[in-house]
């Protein structure tokens, strides 16, 4: 099988599955699941240290930046200023790493991205030399704008964060995949393995998910399932599916026995 690396901002990755580290029972389960998933890029959030809990360790004590590419997010931002602040804090935590997952949301209920603010924040962060991987809606114009601004990956949602609904607007996602030249990563809303496979079969460059593994009944097995689903979908895309058509027999029509 030919090498088929994912390239983001001059870095290459053999896995096309990116995973989050939230919602796990504990850090040990998170680490085991992530290792099984084969993911190389792993997202984290930035939050205040809780001084009432002296023993609280950092997620990075378990998920080592020496082993994984850590992608700090700006989750919890509902305006441009907070998103930029959060990105800078994330970069500082990681000792100057430039990759950031930008997300600026409308509200805590729908968790849908606010594209006006996302575009403004992306513009600032690109100017500040961040490699911006941007969480966004499947709005074509916004995605093109984000690409033009210099984002290194466009990450439209399959469905709202944590919803597990799968790809709810496939036509819009397909148009983005077909017209954006930086990697398109389907982020959020994946519920099960087939959702991830479908995204990859559509030609997405990668899939980013968290809840689908972390909140499944058996995260370790689901992590393997997602790894295989992404690989399977990618192979299927590269192999080229047959066109949908009327029935056509797989066995020859000649030489059939007579009654």
């Amino acid at each position, binding site marked *: 099988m030919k090498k088929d690396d994912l390239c983001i901002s001059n870095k290459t990755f053999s896995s096309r599955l990116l995973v*989050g*580290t939230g*919602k796990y029972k504990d850090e040990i389960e998170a680490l085991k699941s992530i290792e099984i998933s084969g993911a190389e890029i792993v997202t984290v959030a930035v939050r205040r240290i809780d001084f009432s809990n002296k023993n609280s360790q950092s997620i990075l004590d378990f998920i080592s930046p020496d082993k994984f590419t850590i992608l700090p997010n700006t989750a919890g931002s509902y305006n441009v200023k907070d998103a930029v602040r959060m990105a800078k804090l994330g970069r500082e935590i990681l000792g100057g790493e430039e990759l950031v997952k930008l997300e600026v949301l409308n509200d805590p209920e729908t968790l849908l991205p606010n594209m006006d603010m996302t575009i403004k924040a992306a513009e600032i962060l690109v100017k500040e030399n961040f490699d911006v991987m941007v969480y966004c809606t499947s709005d074509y114009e916004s995605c093109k704008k984000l690409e033009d601004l210099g984002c290194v990956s466009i990450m439209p949602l399959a469905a709202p964060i944590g919803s597990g609904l799968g790809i709810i607007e496939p036509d819009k996602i397909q148009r983005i995949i077909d017209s954006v030249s930086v990697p398109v990563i389907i982020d959020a809303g994946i519920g099960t393995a087939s959702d991830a496979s479908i995204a990859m079969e559509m030609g997405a460059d990668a899939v980013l998910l*968290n809840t689908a593994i972390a909140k499944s009944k058996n995260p370790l097995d689901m992590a393997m399932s997602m790894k295989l689903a992404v690989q399977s979908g990618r192979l299927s895309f590269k192999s080229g599916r047959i066109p949908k058509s009327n029935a056509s027999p797989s066995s020859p029509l000649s030489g059939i026995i007579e009654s």
Partner: protein
Amino acid sequence: MKIFVNGTPTEIPLDLNIYMLLDQLDVQKKHIAIEINENIIFKTDWESTKLEEGDKIEIVKAIGGG
């Protein structure tokens, strides 16, 4: 003097730099970031940065997230 650490009013001695504050709070110094009044203080400046009355300090780390 009084400063605010992650939103909580905190009494500290005069002439404390960031390293000393972290020791006082018993915080591990790896993989954290610090802001004073919304400006990031780079690790290289922790030693030379003295805290002042009313400073708003944010001390953050990475946690699980998607």
